[in-house]
């Protein structure tokens, strides 16, 4: 019986944890409640993943109302992968967050922090699981509102400004998405995604569908921080509590990218999006300019979090470029990079969080010789940094290799060359920091007390769990590639 209810449980458990946190109020109790709920959500996402892999698509009718009338949860390989990724990253970062949040957020506000975290997780998982276009918007609002709140918990006044700026941009994005969905409803009379996908081909000639498509594209580009519309991201990542940054970097933009995929490939269909709408003419230059320019911008950042934030926008550029290939191999490359980048960027932000915890700042120029003080943290940073660059045997290599070979397959040699060029920039910005941490002698006349002062185990262990997974995914690249190609096939195959 419980196996049939997994789609609902994945959403209900984190949602249930939020009011319980508000009632419990004591920081430790809240953390335990949130962690239990999150862990159970991971388990049910895991269960669903195998159900989908073995038996095919799951369709769950909420309230017992069958699909076109009621809201349904629709889980195929693509969602199942996203659900597992999002819930797992959230769970690991939540373990890590306890010590980090204890230090940076007032303890009277902890219960709100964990409640907001759970609501955000509910929203993100809900976006991934739902098969109803309007429900996507509802969950998008749940996740965004709680995200603004989480960002504002940063103990810096600029966090409020960053949160407000994201609120404005995010609301514009969300209302564009809502307008898009509204026009689609006007043109087709359907909100269910499967229904929409069936009805759009007949309505394609209507101008409303064209308008809906444009609004959705812009709205989702804002939400997923694609290059010219990424303005909110750097400040939000820099000033929010670092555990939140790690959580958001691994999940929030990835979930928006998933919605982008869902709309372009499953609902409108690649023939409409990339054939008659020439989406790749719009998106590909933005993606390429994004990964080149922002990798370049990242080189000149002196704050580690800001550097990684710009690097995130660059990585989103790779993912969008992969989507623009609109082929099986291109989509596979994009989805693999969603998974891989989600994991390595989370680890990078977690290691920066450890540095912040012990050193108190993240200015890369004054982290001389940090390796002798915090060897494990710096090792984690280097290992995941290598992944970001794309050194063989790391996850970055798997995704970049598949991206380049997919673009070769299409005959777009230039894209492959530019990806390599921006990887060189990544070597510079990661290498610069690593050089400072490993080799540079302290310039201070009064040397700081030498000796190891490592971050607490509760922060290191979750970080190394993720590193272990990323190494596994890097060495046996076929694991993620197989999952991603099944997901890509599910997207390209359309709804059954």
């Amino acid at each position: 019986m419980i196996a049939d209810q997994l789609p609902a449980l994945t959403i209900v458990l984190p949602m249930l944890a939020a009011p319980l946190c508000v009632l419990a109020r004591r920081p430790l109790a809240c953390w335990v409640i949130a962690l239990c709920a999150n862990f159970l959500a991971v388990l049910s996402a895991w269960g669903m993943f195998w159900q989908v892999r073995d038996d095919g698509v799951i369709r769950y009718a909420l309230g017992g109302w069958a699909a076109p009338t009621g809201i349904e949860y629709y889980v195929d390989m693509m969602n199942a992968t996203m659900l597992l990724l999002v819930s797992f990253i959230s769970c690991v970062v939540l373990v890590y967050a306890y010590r980090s949040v204890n230090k940076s957020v007032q303890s009277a506000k902890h219960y709100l922090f964990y409640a907001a975290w759970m609501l955000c997780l509910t929203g993100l998982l809900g976006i991934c699981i739902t098969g109803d276009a309007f429900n996507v918007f509802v969950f998008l609002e749940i996740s965004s509102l709680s995200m603004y709140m989480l960002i504002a918990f940063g103990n810096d006044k600029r966090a409020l400004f960053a949160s407000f700026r994201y609120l404005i941009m995010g609301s514009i994005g969300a209302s564009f998405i809502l307008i898009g969905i509204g026009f689609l409803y006007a043109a087709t009379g359907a909100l269910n995604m499967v229904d929409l996908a069936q009805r759009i081909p007949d309505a394609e000639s209507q101008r409303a569908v064209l308008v809906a498509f444009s609004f959705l594209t812009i709205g989702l580009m804002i939400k997923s921080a694609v290059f010219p519309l990424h303005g909110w991201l750097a400040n939000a990542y820099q000033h929010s509590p670092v555990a939140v940054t790690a959580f958001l970097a691994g999940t929030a933009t990835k979930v928006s990218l998933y919605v982008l995929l869902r709309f372009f490939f499953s609902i409108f269909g690649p023939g409409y999006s990339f054939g008659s709408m020439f989406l790749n003419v719009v998106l590909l230059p933005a993606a390429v300019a994004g990964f080149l320019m922002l990798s370049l911008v990242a080189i000149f950042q002196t704050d580690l979090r800001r550097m990684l934030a710009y690097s995130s926008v660059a990585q989103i550029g790779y993912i969008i470029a992969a989507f623009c290939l609109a082929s099986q191999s291109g989509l596979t490359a994009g989805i693999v990079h969603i998974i891989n980048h989600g994991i390595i960027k989370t680890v990078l932000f977690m290691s920066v969080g450890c540095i912040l915890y012990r050193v108190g700042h993240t200015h890369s120029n004054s982290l001389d010789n940090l390796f002798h003080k915090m060897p494990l943290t710096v090792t984690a940073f280097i290992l995941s940094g290598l992944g970001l660059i794309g050194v063989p045997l790391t996850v970055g290599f798997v995704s970049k290799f598949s991206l380049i070979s997919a673009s070769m397959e299409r005959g777009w040699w230039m894209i492959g060359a530019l990806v390599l060029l921006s990887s060189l920039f990544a070597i510079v910005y990661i290498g610069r920091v690593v050089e400072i941490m490993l080799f540079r002698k302290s310039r201070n006349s009064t040397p700081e007390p030498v000796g190891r002062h490592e971050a607490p185990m509760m922060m290191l262990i979750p970080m190394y769990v993720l590193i272990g997974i990323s190494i596994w995914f890097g060495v046996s690249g076929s694991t993620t590639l197989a999952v991603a190609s099944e997901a890509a096939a599910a997207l390209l195959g359309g709804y059954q």
Partner: protein
Amino acid sequence: MKLYERQRHRVLQIVTKLIIPFVMLFALYVQFHGDYGPGGGFQAGVIFASAFILHGLIFGLQRTRQVITPTALRILMALGVLIYLGTGIYSMLLGGNLLDYNVFAHDGKHGQHWGIFAVELGVGVTVTAVMISLFYSFASKR
């Protein structure tokens, strides 16, 4: 002086005291007719909260805070969501899908009635608490 302050709005205070029970009664009417007629938890919650807001406007924030404390509001806010989710989980325990009200009674129609009743109650409680605490937080800022 103090006596004068308190008596200054005597007419408003008396009228308010007379009106508040009717506002609350109307809120309950809207609440419990939400399943068959127009109305429901959102509207009822706002009307119910407006009784407290009126009390706050006339008698001052201090006295309203004694009537319903911020702590009570925090609990009510969470409680409403729990009632809603509890209904959903109860329907799952009875063997239906999430929020499938048909399983609540032998007759599906009665089940729908009970389900909507419980869910709207949850919505009403949360909306009331959120509206009042919004009023508190705006009114207490200078």
